[in-house]
């Protein structure tokens, strides 16, 4: 490692030691441990707020974003060191949000200078929480058929329509929405990507209760909602390009769920089911299923790593995000099925502390949200295998 990087590591380590509160160095176990930011967010502790403020001040909530918009301005190598040093002391992420995962990268790529100046620093500091308005009641897999209307009223845009599956919209401050700005054009060509302040009478939200008993999603209604004239990102009627770019990020995010830092299922099953005198999981069929699951999990994580390295080396294809989304979500569903098998009747308890049942039911959405498994297979057929008519 170069001297500069070594120096960066030393400084980072010292700074984290000094500035990361002790309470923020324990694993996240319940939903409220995660800091989503935004005007309506209630910090669960002073330490959570302090940690966010300190990290945001350095731009380290988004280490690689440019400094001019409040980001950390770190190189890839430096960001890797920061991540490793945070992992070393088991520091929690100071902030997670759709702004970081989805809108930010799209604004950096397609936003105007004014849009970047206005919105990115607030994402970095966790001041504004964003929601995503894509799907509609009649536009699910066929997203480009969306009908939410957006009219140019001279000094503002007027929006009417309904979005659905808007994640955490009831806790969000702003929403990025796909709207139809040219009803005469072909379906992909009349769509715009617009930023809307939710703090106005024309925007209302209603949570949807899911089979898991939780309500992570909402319906969001637009009744004569207004947006500024400079609120369209990436150009009028050019919203599909931005949407597709952002979907790639969303797919990567969803495919990553269920891998990584979780406790291996073999360990969980060994504890729950017990081992026989030869040290084998007492249920031989579950043992085989769990072993296959772990092998697939290892292979899948190696694949995410490989695609990342290939992208860095300028190889590979962007369409592989569809493959990861397809494989990762199907795998996660299987994993939770096995978790239920292993947990037995304890897992069937409704509202239990660990609540495996809620997680299990939640995973069923993984292969629907962000494009169904079938849609991902269509993308692979068309863009990678280049099959006709796909």
């Amino acid at each position, binding site marked *: 490692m170069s001297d500069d990087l070594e120096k960066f590591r030393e400084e980072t380590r010292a700074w984290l030691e000094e500035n990361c509160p002790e309470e923020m160095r324990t694993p996240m176990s319940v939903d409220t441990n995660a800091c989503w930011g935004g005007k309506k967010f209630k910090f669960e502790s002073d330490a959570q707020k302090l940690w966010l403020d300190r990290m945001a001040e350095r731009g380290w909530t988004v280490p690689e974003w440019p400094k001019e918009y409040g980001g950390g301005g770190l190189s890839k190598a430096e960001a890797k060191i920061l991540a490793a040093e945070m992992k070393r002391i088991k520091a929690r992420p100071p902030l997670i949000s759709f702004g970081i995962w989805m809108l930010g990268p799209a604004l950096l790529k397609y936003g105007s200078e004014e849009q970047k100046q206005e919105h990115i620093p607030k994402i970095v500091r966790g001041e504004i929480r964003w929601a995503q308005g894509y799907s509609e009641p009649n536009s699910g897999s066929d997203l480009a058929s969306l009908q939410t209307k957006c009219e140019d009223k001279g000094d503002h845009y007027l929006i009417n329509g309904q979005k659905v599956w808007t994640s955490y919209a009831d806790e969000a401050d702003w929403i990025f929405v796909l709207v139809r700005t040219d009803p005469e054009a072909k379906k992909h060509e009349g769509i715009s990507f617009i930023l809307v302040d939710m703090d106005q009478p024309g925007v209302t939200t209603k949570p949807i209760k899911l089979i898991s008993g939780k309500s992570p999603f909402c319906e969001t209604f637009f009744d004569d909602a207004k947006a500024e004239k400079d609120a369209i990102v990436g150009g009028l009627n050019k919203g599909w390009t931005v949407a597709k770019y952002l979907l790639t990020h969303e797919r990567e995010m969803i495919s990553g769920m269920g891998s990584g830092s979780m406790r291996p299922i*073999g360990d969980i099953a060994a504890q729950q089911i017990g081992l026989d005198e030869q040290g084998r*999981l007492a249920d031989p069929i579950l*043992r085989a299923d769990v*072993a296959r699951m772990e092998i697939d999990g290892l292979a899948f994580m190696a694949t995410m790593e490989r695609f*990342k*390295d290939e992208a860095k080396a300028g190889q590979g294809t962007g369409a592989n995000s569809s493959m990861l989304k397809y494989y990762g979500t199907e795998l996660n569903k299987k994993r939770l099925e096995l978790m239920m098998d292993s947990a037995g009747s304890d897992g069937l308890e409704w509202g239990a502390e660990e609540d495996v049942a809620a997680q299990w039911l939640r995973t069923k959405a993984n292969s629907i949200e962000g494009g169904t498994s079938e849609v991902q297979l269509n993308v692979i057929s068309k863009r990678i*295998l280049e099959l*006709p*008519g*796909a």
Partner: protein
Amino acid sequence: MAMVLNEEQEMLKDMAKGFLTEKAPVSQLRSLRDSGGTDGFDRGTWGAMAEMGWAGVVVPEEHDGVAMGYQAAGLIAEEMGRTLTASPYVSTAIMGATALNKYGSADQKNEWLPKLAAGGALMAVAVDEARKHAPSSVATKAERAGNGFKLSGEKSFVADGSVADALIVSARTEGAEGDEDGITLFLVPRDSAGLSAEAKSMVDSRNAATIKLDGVELTADAVLGEVDGGYQPLEVILNAGRAGLAAEMSGSAQECLTRTVDYLKERKQFGRTIGEFQALQHRASHLYSEIEVGKSVVMKALQMMDQAPEMAGLMVSAAKAKLGQVAQLAAQESIQMHGGIGMTDEFDIGFFIKRVRVAEALYGDANFHTERYARLRGF
């Protein structure tokens, strides 16, 4: 370690692809099968491979090898999987070389490694004694006789056993059948008195042999590694072969998909190219996904073999289990998607399902390695 090939590896892969496509394509395997020869591979082609350094791919330079490591060795195996090239590559260049290089005495290395790297000596690993792979189930006995040993027993499913110039044989010097302790590895010249090899013609048109050891007398110099301590080295030798076969199966699976997708773009039924049908698109795309995931775990296993071979067992079993399953899926799906023509001997796709079946079974099938994975993980 980055999960991308470096420049040297890219060049090797291109070279291997070029050579094998031209000199040893599937049609060569077909003519080997139809000619009824007993070797099961083409010696001229093997000589050309050795000239390119492939036989010495993991042999150190001091013993005339090219020392490119297991990841490179896997790249060659993967390309051989695409062309179904029959050769003693896995048993000799990967397993034989690993055995001698890591566990051979100075004399054994000096005698065998340069010959092996030059393509002049073939090796085989004689481990199994029953129909299923079980490396600790060793009934073959090695009794002490004078300063040496006397071997008696029978080994089955010995890949390249009838063509090898020397065999690496596991035999019991101590303990009961099934014990990991008390196994010793011997380097047994093919022409030893009392050793006989019966070549079996296999479903993949390549050879495996049953080896009979009828009081084969060996000096103490024939021991490879430590007396009674042969099991752990055997695992490393087998892991090298398993990782190589996983890479080979990855190549075969990729080729099955390529050929199938080409066919889907060409065949017409109901007035349409059949690749337009979503039922077939989704089968092919699912297969693509499985193959991509398989490639990554193979790469990890080979990298582990390079970095920490004694620790590679878990990842190697993951790779062998996964690829056993993926390559069989690929071979089966490619026949289904080819339809009737896929069932004909005249068409090449049927060669893949046959070879993959054998490669999957060799040194432990997917079930064996799934079980072994669970054991190594402690559940």
